C-alpha cells in the first residue's frame, strides 16, 4: 500500500519542485516553485488545455446527467425485458475503452464511416467528427456520453427504487399531475443520489485519457488536448519529469477541488 500509493504521491510532489529531463544524465535540480510559476503565468498551451478539460468535463457530465435521468424515469416501472435493458446498459461501461475507441474511429471516418451515412440520411449533411479541429472535442464527448450515460441511469434508477411512497400518495390526494409530481417531489428527493452520480462522473471525465489518446492523440492541432494528454506528452514524449510532475499536482488539485465543491453542494439544502 505504501509502495504503490503513498510513495508515488510524495515523489510526484517532490519532483514538481525540480527541473529534470529523464532523458539526460544530469541529476534533478531543485528549482523551488518555478514549475508552478510557469504553469500559472507562462504556459499558454497549459491554459488552453485547462479550459478545454473543464469544458469537456462539463459538457459530458451535463449530457450524461440529463440523458441518464431521462432514461431512468423511462425505465422506472415493471416491464417485460427490464433485466435485458439493465444488462445491455452495463456493457458500454465495461467494454475495453481501447476497443470502443477503435470502433468509433471507423464509424467516424469522414467518407467511409457509418455515422456520416446515417446523419446524411437524417438530413444533417456530412460532419467531420474527430477529423477536424472544430468538431474533434464534441465527437470525443459523444463517445464518452455513449460509454457513461448508463452509469448515471443505473444510479438514478437505484435512487428511484429507494424513494419513499408517502409523498406520492399525498400528492395524489392533492390532485397533483405527473409533471408537477416529478418536479416537486421526485427530483428534489433524487438530488443527493444524482449528485453522487455527477461526482463520480466529474472525477473521471476530468481525467479522461484512453479514448482521446486512441482516437485523436490530442489533435487535430491540439484541439482535443486536455491536461491529461498534455501531461502524458510532457512526461513520456519529452521526459520533462519535473514540469510534468507539477502538472500532475495541478490536475490532482483540479479534480480534488471539483470533488469538494460537489460534496459541499450535496450537504447544503436548496
Amino acid at each position, binding site marked *: *500500500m505504501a509502495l*504503490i*500509493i503513498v*510513495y*508515488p*504521491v510524495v*515523489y*510526484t510532489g517532490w*519532483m514538481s519542485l525540480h527541473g529534470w529531463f*529523464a532523458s539526460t544524465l544530469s541529476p534533478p535540480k531543485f528549482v523551488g516553485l518555478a514549475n508552478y510559476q510557469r504553469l500559472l503565468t507562462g504556459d499558454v498551451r497549459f491554459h488552453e488545455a485547462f479550459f478545454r478539460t473543464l469544458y469537456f468535463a462539463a459538457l459530458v457530465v451535463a449530457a450524461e446527467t440529463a440523458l441518464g435521468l431521462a432514461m431512468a424515469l*423511462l425505465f422506472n416501472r415493471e*416491464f417485460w*425485458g427490464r433485466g435485458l*435493458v439493465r*444488462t*445491455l446498459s*452495463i*456493457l*458500454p*461501461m*465495461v*467494454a*475495453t*475503452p*481501447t*476497443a470502443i475507441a*477503435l*470502433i*468509433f474511429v*471507423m464509424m467516424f*471516418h469522414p*467518407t*467511409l464511416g457509418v455515422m456520416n*451515412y446515417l446523419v446524411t440520411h437524417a438530413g444533417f449533411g456530412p460532419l467531420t467528427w474527430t477529423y477536424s479541429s472544430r468538431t474533434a472535442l464534441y465527437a470525443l464527448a459523444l463517445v464518452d456520453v*455513449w460509454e457513461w450515460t*448508463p452509469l448515471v441511469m*443505473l*444510479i438514478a434508477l*437505484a*435512487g428511484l427504487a429507494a424513494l419513499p411512497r408517502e409523498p406520492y400518495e399525498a400528492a395524489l390526494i392533492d390532485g397533483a399531475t405527473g409533471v408537477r409530481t416529478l418536479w416537486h417531489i421526485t427530483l428534489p428527493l433524487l438530488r443527493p*443520489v444524482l449528485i*453522487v*452520480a455527477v461526482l*463520480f462522473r466529474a*472525477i473521471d471525465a476530468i*481525467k479522461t*485519457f*484512453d479514448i482521446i489518446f*486512441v482516437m485523436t492523440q490530442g489533435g487535430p492541432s491540439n484541439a482535443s488536448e486536455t491536461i*491529461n494528454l498534455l*501531461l502524458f506528452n510532457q*512526461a*513520456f514524449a519529452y521526459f520533462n519529469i519535473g514540469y*510534468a*510532475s507539477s502538472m*500532475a*499536482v495541478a490536475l*490532482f488539485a483540479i*479534480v*480534488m477541488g471539483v470533488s469538494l465543491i460537489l460534496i459541499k453542494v450535496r450537504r447544503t439544502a436548496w
Partner: protein
Amino acid sequence: MGREAFARRRRPRALGALRTAGYYAVVGIVMLPTVFVFYWMITLSLKTQVEAAGYPPHFFHFAVTLTNYAEVFRKNPFPQYVWNSFVVAAGSTLLGLAAGLPAAFSIARWRQHGLALTVLVARIIPGISYLIPWYVLFRRAHLVDTYEALILTHLVVGLPLIIWVMAGFFEDVPPDLTEAALIDGCSHYGAFWRVALPLVRPGIVAAAILSFIFSWNNFLFSVILAGRHTRTLPIAVFNMINYEEISWGPLAAAATMITIPVIVLTLIVQRHIVSGLTLGAVKH
C-alpha cells in the same frame, strides 16, 4: 346498443395495447445506440475487406467470413498478448484480494473512516501521477517490461474496487457471528478467516471479476510500463491501428476478441458493477 357497449368496453384495452407498443418503441430507440456500436463491431469483424470499407455500408446483407480473425492470429502473436493480459489481470486481482479483504473487513467492522477516505482520495488522484514515479523507479530497477511492474501498478485499479465491494458485503455479516467466534476462543484473524470469509464468498467472486475486468481494460499504465515481452491486449490493438491504411476487418476482429471475455464476465457480476464503480455509494 349491444355493439356500442362492446365498443366502449373494447376501446380502453386497444388504447392500452397501443400505449404498450409505443412504450416499447421508445425503449427500443433509446437502447439502439448502445446495441448498434456492438453490432457494428461484430459485423465489421465478419465482413470482407471490400465490404468493411464499402460505401454505402451494408447493415444486414453481407458475406460472412472469418478471414479477419485468421489474419489477426497470422500477423500478431495474439495468444501471447492474451496470456500477458491474463497474467497481469489475474496477478493483480489475487494480490488485491490478499490486501483488500482484510482491509474491507476492518472498514466494515471497526468503521475505519481514515482508510475509507484514503481509498476515495486514491480514486481522485489522476492515474498519471502514479505513473511518473513508477516509471522512474521501475526503469532504475530494470523492471519496465516485466509482469511484476504491471501487476503492482494494476493493483491501484483493482484494490479500491475490491475494498469497496467487499466492505459492503462484510457489513451484511451479522456482528454476532464473529463475536461468538471470538468468545469461543478464535483470534480476530480466525474470526475473519473461518467465519466471515466463507459467508461473503459470492462477494469475493464479484469483487475479483470486477478487478479482473478493469485490469484487463487498463491502457494508461500498460502503454508505458509494458514492453515487447509483456504487451497487453489494449496496447497490442492500439499498435495495430494504422491511420493511413484502412484495414478495418482485422481491427474489428481484435476489438471483438478483447471485448468478449469482458462481456461474459460482466454477465456474472452485473448486480455489483454500479456499486463497484461508485465506491459503494450506490448499492443494489
